[in-house]
C-alpha cells in the first residue's frame, strides 16, 4: 500500500512543481486569476479535511481498543466531513464553469481545475475506501489484533489530506 501512496505523492509532487515553475513564467496572469478564487471555500475545505483526518486517527485508536462500533462512528464523522468537502468543491467548480472558465481558459485555471479535479477524484476514492472499512467495522470485521484494513484505509485518507495541505496554500494562498 505504501508503495502506491508514494506513487500518488510523486504524481502530485510533479504537478505541484509544474504549477510553481509554470507560474514563474507568467506571474501576473497567475496572480490575477488567483483573485477569482473563493479562498473562503478553500479554507473551510482545509478545515474539513484536517478534521476528517483527525477523526480517522480517533477511529484507528478505537479499533485498537476493540471498540468496533465507535470506530465506525468516527469513520462516519470523517466521511461526513469528506462529503461536505466534495459538496463545497462542486459548488466551487460549478461557479467557475458558470462563469465560462474551463481548463482551456489559461494555464492557471488548467492547474486549478485539473489539480482540483484530480484531487477531488482522490477524495471520492478515499470515501469509497473509508465506506468499505466502515461497513466492515460496523459488522465487527476488525479486532484489536487484526485491523490492517483500518490502518490502510486511514493511511490513504491521510495521504489525500496531506496533498490538500500543500495544494491549498499553493493555489489559493501564495501569490
Amino acid at each position: 500500500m505504501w508503495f502506491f501512496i508514494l506513487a500518488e505523492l510523486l504524481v502530485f509532487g510533479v504537478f505541484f512543481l509544474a504549477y510553481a515553475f509554470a507560474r514563474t513564467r507568467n506571474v501576473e496572469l497567475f496572480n490575477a486569476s488567483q483573485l477569482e478564487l473563493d479562498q473562503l471555500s478553500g479554507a473551510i475545505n482545509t478545515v474539513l479535511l484536517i478534521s476528517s483526518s483527525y477523526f480517522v486517527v480517533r477511529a484507528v485508536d478505537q479499533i485498537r481498543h476493540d471498540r468496533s462500533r465507535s470506530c465506525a462512528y468516527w469513520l462516519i464523522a470523517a466521511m461526513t466531513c469528506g462529503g461536505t468537502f466534495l459538496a463545497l468543491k462542486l459548488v466551487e467548480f460549478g461557479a467557475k464553469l458558470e462563469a465560462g472558465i474551463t481548463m482551456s481558459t489559461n494555464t492557471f485555471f488548467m492547474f486549478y481545475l485539473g489539480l482540483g479535479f484530480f484531487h477531488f477524484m482522490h477524495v471520492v476514492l478515499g470515501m469509497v475506501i473509508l465506506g468499505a472499512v466502515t461497513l466492515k467495522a460496523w459488522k465487527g470485521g476488525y479486532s484489536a489484533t487484526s485491523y490492517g484494513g483500518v490502518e490502510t484505509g486511514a493511511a490513504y485518507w491521510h495521504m489525500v489530506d496531506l496533498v490538500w495541505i500543500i495544494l491549498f496554500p499553493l493555489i489559493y494562498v501564495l501569490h
Partner: protein
Amino acid sequence: MKYKSQAVAKPYFIAAIGLFLGQIVFGLIMGLQYVVGDFLFPAIPFNVARMVHTNLLIVWLLFGFMGAAYYLIPEESERELHSPKLALAMFWIFLVAGAATILGYLLVPYASLAKWTGNDLLATMGREFLEQPLPTKIGIVVVALAMLYNLSMTVLRGRKTTINLVMLIGLWGLAIFFLFSFYNPGNLVKDKYYWWWVVHLWVEGVWELIMGAMLAFVLIKVTGVDREVIEKWLYVIIAMALITGLIGTGHHYYWIGAPEYWQWWGSVFSALEPIPFFMMTVFAFNMVNRRRREHPNKAAVLWALGTGVMAFLGAGVWGFLHTLAPVNFYTHGSQITAAHGHMAFYGAYAMVVMTMISYTMPLMRGRAANSRSAQVVEMWSFWLMTVAMVFITLFLTAAGILQIWLQRVAAEPMSFMAAQEQVALFYWMREVAGLVFLIGVLLYIGSFFIKGKSEAATA
C-alpha cells in the same frame, strides 16, 4: 504439457514465426527504399511495403498472444480447453483472412481494395495500423470473440488464478478497444483522438497486461518461485502500467488539435510510464536469482530476462526521451519516433512472444527442453536479433537527431527531402543492421529443426 488441448497453440506459434519472417523481409525492402528510392517501384511502393510490415507485425503478435492464451489458460485453469475445435477453426479463419489481406495489399491498388470491400459503406481504412479492409476488421472481432468465449468458459469452470484472470482481462480489453477502429469521424481531430484509443490503449495499456501474464507464467515455470510472490508482482506491475498509461495517452494529444492541457497531463503521466517497465526488468531478474530449480530450458530463461531489459530500454527509456511536451515539439513524427517504435515493439512484445514460444514449443513437441545444440543456436539468434535491434535503434536515433537539427532547429531549415539526403549514411547502416537481424531470424527458425539429445518431458 499437462492437457492435450494445449497443443492447439502450436499452429498459432508456427504461423506467428512465419509472419515474423515476412515482416522482417518487408522491413528490409522499406529500409532499402529509404536510400534507393525507386527500389521495386512501382511494383511495391513504400506505402504498400509499410502497410505489410506493420500489419504483419500486429497479426503475428496477435497470433502469438492467442497461442499463448490457448496454452497457458488450460494449464492455469487445470482443465482442458472448452473447445479445441473452435480454437483450431479460428486459427484457420484468422490465417486465411490475414493472408488474403496481405495479398490484397500487394496485388490490388489500395483504392480498389477499399471499393470492393465495402469501405464506402463504413469508411475505416487508410488510417495508420488500421488499414485492414472492413471484412478483415470484422474477422478480427469474430476471431477475438470466439477466442474469448472459448477461454472464458475454460476459466469459469476451472481454477481461477491471477495469471489467467489478468490474461483474460488483457484479451477482453484488446477486443473492446479494437471496436474504436470502426469509428472514423470526418473531423480529423476526433478521428485521431479515438484512433489512439485503439493504438495507445493497446500497446501501452491492455497489451502490457497480456505481456505481464505471459512473463509471470513462464517465470513461475522456469524458476519455481512461489506463485504468491510472482502474482503479487504481476498485480503491482500492471497496476502501475494502467495508472501511468491511461492518462499517458495524453502524450499523443499534444499536436493534433486537442486542448493544450494535455501537454501537462501527458507529460507528467507518461514520464512515469517507464516505472512499470523498470519493475518488469527487476521482476524478471529477481525471480531468476531466487530460482529454486535449474530448468533445462536455458533459452527460455534468456528470452525472459531479455524481454525485461529490452522492454525497459525500448519502451521505457526511448519512450521517455521524447515524451515531454517541450522535447516532443521537435521530435514528434521524426526518425526518433521510428527508433522508439522499433525497440519498444521488439523488446516488449516480439520478445515476450518468443519467450513463450521458447518455453512451450519443446513441451508441445514432447520434451522438457530442446537439445543443447538447438538451444545454443537459439541463444545465438537471440543475441543477433537483439544486438541488431539495438543498432537499428541507435542509427535511427542518430538519423532522427540530425534530421531534427537540419529540418526543425537550424536557423535556415532544410526541406524534408534535403534533410533526408543528409542522413542517408545512417539509413545505410540501419539496413546493414537489419540484415544481421534477418540472419538472426533465420537462425531462430533453423533452431527448431536441430535435433540432438533432448531432455525427457517432465514439466
